[in-house]
């Protein structure tokens, strides 16, 4: 309501009064508003005449006689479409919601790794691509020590270079990964001295070769379950890493309980501890475990470890990465089923009433 100047508050302006005329005619104004308009009308002849002209217009419109319909609009009985069942409308809405949830979860899978991804090493960035194409990292691991070593060295250099930024990268990573530094640092410290030594690396490799089947599963499983954003690639890379391991399917499941084991393994077996670091080229998750054993398991890493093997043995990050793919599958399956049900309902309805 307009507050006039010079204390004349509540006085209706001419423009406001004009806007209220029709509502006043139809008795749609509140009593207070109607009172204010009537006060204005008493003083404003223009508005009074306008009101009366509007009334005449309204009456004129009311005199318009009904129009004669050209024909009957009743529906024919048989071939007319029957009403779609109420279930159809419900299914249609449910499908839309499920599909939206599915798309959101897929987008979350893409966004999360970007949000938590530290700088990683060039080898780390290479690893994801190699992961998809590497057939048997374990085979390469044991059968090509030379290749491993050559791959190892640049990786080692990258790893040592990255071990410094690793803590920073780790802190920049997602929250669940933040707890990685403490446990990672211990094994990193243990690994650091032998890291630059190629013989040690070789030794680690050979040590690892026989122990790989035994320890890698232990370590890789929790790592694989670690908060890696690309959950789908995680599974294939897991398989690639340990093709012979029957434990693989259970890797995600044992991720959480296996995490403490990883720490134990890391503490107890320095060379094996390097395996957590296997993640080497993995990109973000790698960052945390960057220096740990990256050089040791350079071959399998470059052979195609996924990013997951990295670090944060965090329960929350592990559960997040474990839950996200499950949620995605559930949402995707649900939206597909609902879409099928919606289309099916419509189709059956059309068939029945054709």
């Amino acid at each position: 309501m307009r507050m006039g100047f010079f204390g004349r508050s509540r006085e209706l302006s001419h423009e406001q009064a004009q806007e209220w005329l029709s509502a006043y005619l139809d008795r749609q104004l509140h009593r207070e508003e109607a009172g204010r308009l009537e006060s204005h009308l008493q003083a404003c002849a223009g508005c009074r005449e306008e009101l009366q002209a509007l009334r005449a217009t309204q009456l004129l419109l009311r005199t318009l006689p009904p129009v004669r319909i050209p024909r009957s609009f009743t529906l024919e009985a048989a071939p007319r479409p029957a009403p779609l069942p109420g279930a159809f409308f419900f299914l249609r809405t449910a499908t839309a919601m499920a599909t939206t949830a599915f798309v959101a979860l897929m987008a979350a899978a893409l966004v999360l790794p970007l949000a938590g991804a530290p700088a990683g090493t060039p080898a780390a960035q290479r690893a994801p691509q190699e992961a998809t194409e590497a057939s048997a990292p374990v085979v390469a691991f044991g059968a090509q020590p030379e290749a491993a070593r050559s791959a190892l060295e640049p990786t080692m250099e990258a790893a040592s270079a990255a071990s410094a930024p690793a803590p920073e990268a780790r802190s920049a990573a997602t929250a669940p990964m933040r707890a990685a530094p403490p446990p990672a640092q211990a094994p990193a410290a243990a690994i650091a001295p032998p890291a630059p030594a190629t013989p040690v690396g070789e030794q680690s490799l050979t040590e690892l070769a026989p122990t790989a089947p035994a320890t890698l599963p232990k370590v890789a499983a929790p790592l694989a379950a670690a908060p890696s954003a690309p959950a789908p690639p995680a599974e294939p890379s897991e398989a690639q890493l340990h093709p012979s391991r029957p434990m693989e399917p259970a890797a995600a499941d044992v991720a959480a309980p296996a995490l403490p084991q990883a720490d134990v393994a890391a503490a107890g077996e320095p060379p094996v501890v390097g395996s957590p670091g296997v993640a080497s080229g993995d990109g973000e998750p790698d960052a945390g475990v960057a220096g740990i054993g990256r050089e040791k398991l350079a071959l399998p890493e470059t052979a195609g470890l996924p990013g997951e093997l990295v670090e944060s043995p965090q329960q929350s990050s592990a559960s997040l990465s474990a839950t996200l793919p499950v949620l995605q599958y559930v949402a995707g399956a649900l939206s597909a089923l609902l879409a099928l049900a919606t289309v099916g309902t419509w189709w059956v309805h059309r068939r029945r009433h054709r």
Partner: protein
Amino acid sequence: MDEAAWIAASKAGDVQAFNRLVIAYQQTAYSLAVRMLRDEDSAADATQDAFLAAFTHMNQFRGGSFKAWLLRIVLNQVYDRLRRLQRHPTESIDALTYEDDSPVLQIVNGSPTPEEVAISGEVMACIEAGLRTLSPEQRATVILSDVHGMSYEEIAATTGTSLGTVKSRLNRGRMAMRGYLTKHTELLPGSIRQYLERGRLEKEEVPDMAASERTGP
């Protein structure tokens, strides 16, 4: 007439029950469509499509005013056709066919004069032409209110807008109509002309106007 029973039966797919609803509302539906579109063929198509759509989607009607729900479907059909016409304008100068026993113009000052009783087609055409100068939304609001006598709430439900929007559109639409009619008063009966120009109203028509009449300047 048990509209609720017809509606329930229609939801179950009873075409005969739905046709009872069609018979009850087709006059109103077609009247709205033809005044919006000004073309009888398009209006008939729009009305038929609206009834078909209403029957198909009966299970989406969850109570309230069936008339408002149905007219909303009619308006959607009308707006679709108006949009198409905007892209491909066609000339349509068909005059509307009125019922023979049209109601007499209600004159506010008592018994109508013979001149006023014989409402010529030109007056109706003038009003229809005036409606055409309004925007589609204003036209729909004015028609629903002053031709069909719907309440502001019903109009809001039919057009899917708020009460404030209804008030504003109705006010502007009526003022635009009044301006148009004032410019073409030569077609109107004398008494109507004077009402439009000087707006002399009797107190029994608008009781609350009595006060302002008597206490004029």
